């Protein structure tokens, strides 16, 4: 099962400069963060959803649909019943819950959109262009790559221990956590061993060769990037203005 979200497809979004993609992600997050009126959020959420669909990200949404639904329902219910009250549903709470749920799902969708159209190497490249030290960007991207590897290892360990009669479904929370020790120990030790080998392999590929680094990836920013940059920039500005003017905000709690 693939655990990365990148969908190789020749869409216009994929061809954007990595820095543009990163800027777009930042703009969407800022825009969704500053306002909390559901009607104002709606066009933003719709725009992110439309981009996600056009980038071929629907399979990713389908894979993570449970997360979307859980986040939305849980947020809505909690705020509706606990907005300045305890276990009493309020109208203000419902709207605040609705806006928070929409914002969280928009963050999620914007993140998935970014990972759908961006290779891990592009993320490192974009970070590098923005002045982040190479090793920091590389470690970040390596973490992405390792998630599926450790997920597989954890699955194998869990299976092996279940074959020895381990039952992680019985007992209270604390007992269950303790039952996970036979899973966690081999996974961690395996991870450390592999990390050690990876570090050796990195050194052998000249990671610390002492010579200046060169970069193969040549991302050229074109007219497409200018258009995209203006659009996402304008979006962020419009939402910040909506926030500053107060139209984007719900009435505060009395």
């Amino acid at each position, binding site marked *: *099962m*693939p655990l*990365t979200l*990148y969908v190789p497809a020749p869409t216009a979004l994929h061809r954007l400069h990595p820095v543009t993609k990163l800027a777009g992600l930042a703009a969407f997050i800022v825009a969704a963060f500053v306002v909390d009126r559901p009607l104002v959020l709606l066009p933003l959420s719709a725009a992110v959803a439309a981009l996600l669909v056009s980038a071929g990200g629907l399979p990713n949404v389908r894979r993570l649909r449970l997360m979307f639904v859980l986040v939305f329902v849980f947020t809505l219910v909690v705020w509706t019943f606990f907005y300045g009250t305890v276990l009493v549903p309020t109208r203000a709470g419902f709207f605040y819950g609705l806006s928070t749920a929409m914002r969280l799902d928009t963050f999620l969708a914007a993140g998935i959109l970014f990972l759908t159209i961006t*290779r*891990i*190497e592009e993320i490192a490249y974009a970070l590098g262009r923005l002045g982040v030290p190479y090793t920091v960007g590389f470690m970040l991207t*390596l973490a992405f*790559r390792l998630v*599926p*590897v450790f997920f597989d*290892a954890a699955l*194998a*360990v869990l*299976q*092996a*221990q*279940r*074959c*020895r*009669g*381990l*039952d992680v479904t019985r007992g209270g929370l604390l007992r269950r956590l303790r039952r996970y*020790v*036979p*899973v966690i*120990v*081999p996974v961690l*030790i*395996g991870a450390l*061993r*592999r990390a050690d*080998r*990876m*570090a*050796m*392999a*990195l*050194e*052998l*590929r*000249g*990671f*610390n*060769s*002492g*010579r*200046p*680094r*060169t*970069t*193969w990836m*040549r991302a050229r920013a074109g007219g497409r990037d200018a258009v995209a940059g203006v659009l996402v920039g304008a979006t962020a500005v419009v939402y910040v203005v909506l926030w500053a003017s107060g139209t984007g905000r719900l009435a505060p709690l009395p």
Partner: protein
Amino acid sequence: MNGAAISVRGLSCTYPGAARPALADLDLELPHGALAVVMGASGAGKSTLARCLTRLVPCFTPADVTGDVRLVGASVANRHVGELAGTIGMVFQDFEAQLFSTDVTQEVVFGLEHTGVPPAEMPGRVARALAAVGLAGFEQRDPTTLSGGEKQRLAIAGLLALRPPIMVLDEPTTDLDPVGRAEVLRTLAALRGEGLTLVVIEHDVAAAVAADRVVFLREGRVIADGPAATLLGDAETCAAAGVRPPDVTRVFAALGLVDPPLELEAAAARLRAAGVVPRPPRFLPRGARVSAPLIALHGVGHRYPNGHEALVDVDLELRKGEFVALVGRNGSGKTTLAKHLNGLLQPTAGQVVLRGSRMAGRPLEEIAEDVGYVFQDPDHQLFASSVEDEVAFGPRNLGLAPAAVEARVAEALDAVGLHERAADPFVLDKGVRQRLAVAAVLALGPDVLVLDEPTTGLDYPEQRAMMELLRRLHADGHTIVVITHTPWVIAEYAQRVVLLADGRVRYDGTPRPFFEDDALLAAAAFRAPEATRLGRLLGCTPLSVEELVAWVPQRTSACP
């Protein structure tokens, strides 16, 4: 170029806290363009030697290193691993740990970026490196979608692009199936053709036969160093180094012949010339066909959530007391099938019946008392701080009383011949850890034992010990199923071979006809053991050296 590619003088290496040095006053000299294969039991110092050449020891793993190592004439003293990136490359057994990128091109470019190669030069270097390992046309592929052999060749390409004159490969084929092994060995031949100096650490004699030089290590010293034919042709030297001698060598030694040629056709010709004519008995012993089925698979199919059909319409009966080898290429469905035997996977079509009742819906821990499953990597299950706690884990999960747990632990440890009950599992040798993993599963008291590649990654003495352990358990009444790629393991131990191809059972029967069916073997990319192939050149099908030798009539002692 004059001088040696690799020159090692008086190299000693002691890890902190170790009782004895990993390398002791080792000398080695290899000319440019040589293919040297380094062999020896685990703990002989093979990996340490490789790591001293690349400076991973002591730069990465601290150790007390003395002596002189020169690569292409230059001393490596005080150099960093990264500085040597264009001088010496090194590939590990664990190919997953050597790949960092999301496509093949990026992977090869990776090292070039770190060593300051101008971007304009990169496409040419990438193309050459990929062509050398036979991965041209794979440029856009995601490395996670490659087979094991392809991944290992990609790891080689990533180093090759740096144009090192020397390449060290530490057990590059151990984790591969026969197809992957053949691919990597072909790649080695191609690299040799390009003039690289290659140092290959290998357990498998097949890889050593083509070498210019073979070096046997034992306890950190070179105990033999010479042409492949000389070292591999000497059964005693092989035994001293803990190396499995070629079958030809053992046959010649048993028949009192000298200078065995390592090439099978030549060996057969020599045997014929010496008047050796094996006469197999008219009725060969067949595996005892017995008793009621323990596990039965009826029309079992398995389709993974991603749509991949791993098993298609498999009918199989496992009877009590059988010793079954489950074989096939990687991806043929062996592990998927094995995981149906103990309920780890449920069929998506058909059904699995255990002792007459359907397995579906029964809890795993209950099935575990009938069918034990030993995973390929013992480190996937060892977690306790002592051997006895490790083995007691299963019985305790069954809710047994302390006295009963103790009885199970004692019995299981006794069965695998492990007596250091207080030892920490993580400091044990790989072979011992593998036996401990078997004990941990045995302690649940299963009748059936399923083992996924129990000999992979072990040296020859450890492999023998593991297979002899399984033979004893089998004699004690256990039903054994092993997934394996190792021909002699099948030939010498299994009574029944089940070959899978593309999720279907392609062969199910005794080993001898299996090894006689050339079309079948070719389709499965499988080779018979050397003794069998040698026997077939002489008109019979023995399954082991012992059998072949026993079939040769005692010749009257040679004339004086």
